[in-house]
């Protein structure tokens, strides 16, 4: 009922400051593994200065992956932020309210037909949690090696995201795991419940950074 | 003289009794020898794979194959009836095979239909 309200709220902080650790990823892969796009390993030039348009920092984005990103951008415009484009790996960041739409587009028009994993990362400095869907494709042969990371960010204190279970059936257990490990409530997910942790777990979600393992 | 046949069967009863004689002391001996630790009530719960048992242990409707049990009652009777025929085969005239053929025919028809019914999925 109040999901509408809650959905609106986290989008503001997500849009405002580009998160530092994620935007500064400029490491070129040292050893390209792909047979087709065998690129000479560019010397890693990490530039930690946060800048808004990250794609420019990439040495030169491979053509095929660039084409994929362009296709997405053509549909959704500026609501998509490209975090990095590397051989076989693309990471894009979207607003929580757009994610269902983008995922539906990716599934229907692009051929990313399943989610390999759903993972979350806690950034206490930014006060945000980044949730990443690693999308892959079984049905398109040329996309077989590609992994598209669909990322979204939500407020850390009231972590809520729309579920993608209606788009990707395969995220059902992954989202459940993310819920209990990071405390991200997925609106519309049928079972935001305990999954892996003990039945009497009463602590904060363990993968948040403020959860410390005893004795360490 | 009544009871001659019963006397023939007596060894079966004795043997049954001997089965008891052989097994009851084993249980008693085991009861005497083995430890009895009864302080842990969880130990006596029915097996439920390490969980607390839920629901009744006994009520279960294995209805899908109930038909076979119903059929068994009737066809068991039929097959033992055939023994009466089988033992008497040498002493009856050959024409007397006809009734048993008729009997078998009827039973085959019934069995075929019953097996057809029992084999249908979803109605049991």
């Amino acid at each position, binding site marked *: 009922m109040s999901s509408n309200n809650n959905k609106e709220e986290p989008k503001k902080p997500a849009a405002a400051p580009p998160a530092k650790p994620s935007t500064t*990823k400029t490491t070129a892969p040292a050893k390209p593994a792909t047979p087709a796009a065998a690129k000479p*390993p560019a010397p*890693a030039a990490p530039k930690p200065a946060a800048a808004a348009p990250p794609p420019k920092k990439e040495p030169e984005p491979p053509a095929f992956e660039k084409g994929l990103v362009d296709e997405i951008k053509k549909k959704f415009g500026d609501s998509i932020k490209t975090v990095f484009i590397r051989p076989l790996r693309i990471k894009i960041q979207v607003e929580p309210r757009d994610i269902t739409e983008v995922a539906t587009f990716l599934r229907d028009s692009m051929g990313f037909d399943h989610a390999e994993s759903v993972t979350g990362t806690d950034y206490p400095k930014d006060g945000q949690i980044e949730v990443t869907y690693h999308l892959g494709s079984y049905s398109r042969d040329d996309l077989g090696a590609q*992994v598209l990371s669909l990322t979204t960010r939500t407020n850390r204190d009231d972590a809520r995201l729309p579920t993608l279970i209606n788009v990707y059936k395969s995220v059902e257990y992954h989202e459940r*795991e993310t819920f209990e490990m990071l405390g991200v409530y997925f609106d519309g997910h049928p079972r935001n419940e305990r999954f892996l942790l003990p039945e009497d777990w009463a602590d904060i979600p*363990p993968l948040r950074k403020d959860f410390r*393992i005893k004795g360490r | 003289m009544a009871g001659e046949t019963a006397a023939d069967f007596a060894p079966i009863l004795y043997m049954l009794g001997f089965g008891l004689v052989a097994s009851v002391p084993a249980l008693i001996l085991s009861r005497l020898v083995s430890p009895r630790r009864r302080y842990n009530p969880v130990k006596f719960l029915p097996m*439920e794979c390490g969980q607390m048992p839920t629901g009744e242990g006994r*009520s279960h409707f294995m209805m899908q194959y109930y038909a076979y049990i119903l059929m068994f009652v009737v066809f068991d009777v039929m097959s033992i009836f055939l023994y009466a025929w089988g033992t008497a085969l040498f002493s009856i005239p050959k024409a007397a095979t006809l009734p048993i053929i008729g009997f078998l025919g009827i039973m085959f028809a019934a069995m075929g239909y019953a097996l057809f019914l029992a084999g249908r999925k979803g109605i049991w």
Partner: protein
Amino acid sequence: MTSLEDKFEESKRLGLQIVKESEEDRLMTLSIGPQHPGSGHFRFTIKVDGDYIVYCDPDPGYVHRGEEKMSEYRNFIQNIPHLERPVIHDSTNITYAYSLAVEELVGIEVPRRGQYIRAIASELNRQVYTLYWLAIYGIFLGHSTMFMWPTGDRELFIDLLEALTGARVTHAFNIPGGVRNDTPDGFKDRCIRQVRYFEKRLKEYEDIFYNNPLFRQRTEQVGVLTKEDAIKLGVAGSVLRASGIPYDIRKAEPYDIYNEIDFKVQYMKTGDSFARSYVPFLDMKESCHIIEQLLDKMPQSGEVRAKLQPNPKGPPGEAYRRVESGRGALGYHIISDGTPKPYRVKISVGSFRNMLALPFLLVGQKLADMPSVYWSLNYWPVEADR
């Protein structure tokens, strides 16, 4: 739409009569696991209507040990011995992907001979895992010989790995930058001899198990996962390949030297329990060829491990690398913040993805099909729990 309703709809699609009335009379809740000879360290609750399963709810987590959290407290090298714990029968493969990801983050190149030794160890370990899996599949179906033979023949590969790595199961062999040590003397001959013998043994497996009509009766047309459903559920590894999708990370995204190896992706089209159990067997056959090729093509000498400092660290960044493990694609998503310890490690394992297919396939099956469907999913509970 709740999950239960969803399952009921799926089961209707499978053609099962779901009892609407007098449900409480007919349904019996059975808990399979954790102390069940047919579950492993895993529990799922099923509801049976007579002989048919109408509801299934997996409840993993009995062996969850927070590997992802643990990794954040140790540096990249120290993570190796505990990251292989989730699946010690396939411990080379699970550290393989980790090593690849760390190498990408830190920026090291593995020497060529090291890459070959890695691949050999990985293939041998795949055999070990698959044989163990096959043994349990045999005993699940009541075939005790099929339990004993693979566990015995697994010893061939365990001995090889023990000669190579120094440990029988928990190898801790792959390390960012290569492998821990070079092959011992005479390893190649021993390896080829034992692999050849094993190829002969595989035929016996086929005779006594896969071609056994009783086994076929139990597994054919049981738990059919169609191609569309397989894609929709995002399953991985042999389950996926059994449904008719020839997808293998070694082929789709060749890591290390796999693009130089000539091998076929084994797959079947039927998608039933039999196909799911037969694809790993075909993989084992193919793996024997791969091992022989690797041994042939391996450089005779050279470095096996790149030099790197004891506390390797790279620039901030993230990497997602996958390998094909015994249970399908195994991916590591590592985020580094520039320190020697990873900021976040996510292990994306095939078992966890295949678990989703369990309720999907079990609903509508007979109770007796439960083990054959469950274990054909190539599910390793410890790995799924991580």
